């Protein structure tokens, strides 16, 4: 198997960010590559989220 | 704890209904709002502290101070603690069992200590006659004497012609 300890995540939306956080906790270095100038993807545009209606940011 | 507090409040002349113990889990936002609104309305019903029907209006402040001291006395707390230990072991937490046990063991000790503390506070302003003292602490003659006797023996109080005074 390989010795690489880094992983690339393509996309900085909620899925990309959550994967990056978990991988960092699991001991890996993460390159989070995002097309836009900010991370958060579409979720960052939302005001509230269902089902609990708490804020999305 | 709630029952002990209710009985303590009753003893010193505060309407026990002013204190509520409610349960609302993290998911029960709406239920919590109902409980709070009902509580605010019921307290509004009772009016400011001391003005409700079963409350001793003017002496409340002094009584409460004496009550806090009484609740900090180790004698009273030991009775409360050992009782909780018993309940924890037996596991019968029915409201009746709790009410009975507290009114049998804890409240008498609390009342005795509260009255003793109140007497000391009243006498700080100078000696007072026994009857006036008994009335203002809300204790009948027999009970009053039983509380005062040990205090005199221990030299905390002394008898004088005008009544009782701090030693």
């Amino acid at each position: 198997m390989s010795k690489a300890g880094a992983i690339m995540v393509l996309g900085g939306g909620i899925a990309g960010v959550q994967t990056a956080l978990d991988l960092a906790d699991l001991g890996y270095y993460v390159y989070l590559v995002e097309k836009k100038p900010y991370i958060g993807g579409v979720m960052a545009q939302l005001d509230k989220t269902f089902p609990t209606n708490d804020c999305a940011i | 704890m709630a029952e002990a507090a209710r009985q303590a409040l009753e003893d010193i002349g505060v309407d026990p209904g002013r204190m509520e113990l409610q349960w609302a889990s993290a998911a029960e936002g709406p239920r919590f709002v109902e409980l709070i609104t009902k509580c605010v309305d019921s307290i509004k019903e009772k009016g400011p502290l001391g003005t409700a029907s079963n409350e001793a209006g003017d002496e409340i402040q002094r009584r409460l101070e004496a009550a806090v001291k009484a609740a900090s006395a180790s004698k009273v707390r030991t009775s409360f603690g050992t009782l909780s230990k018993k309940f924890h072991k037996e596991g019968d937490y029915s409201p009746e069992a709790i009410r009975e046990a507290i009114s049998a063991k804890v409240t008498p000790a609390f009342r005795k200590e509260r009255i003793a503390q109140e007497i000391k506070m009243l006498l700080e302003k100078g000696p007072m006659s026994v009857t006036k003292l008994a009335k203002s602490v809300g204790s009948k003659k027999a009970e009053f004497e039983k509380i005062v006797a040990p205090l005199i023996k221990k030299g905390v109080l002394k008898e004088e012609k005008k009544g009782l005074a701090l030693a």
Partner: protein
Amino acid sequence: MTQEGYNPRILGFFCHWCCYAAADSAGVSRYQYPPNVRVIRVMCTGRIDVRFILEAFRCGADGVFTGG
């Protein structure tokens, strides 16, 4: 015997995990309720000592709401 102008002051002891969380979830869904309660957060209802309740009344509370 309710006086209209009278605004009671109520002290709340809320358990961090249940009642305090219920209050937060009521806030998140914007339920409205009267503003008379001031909250002291405790880790559990078991932490509340009879002395706290008596002291609360001594310090001018018209009511005490302990929430587990």
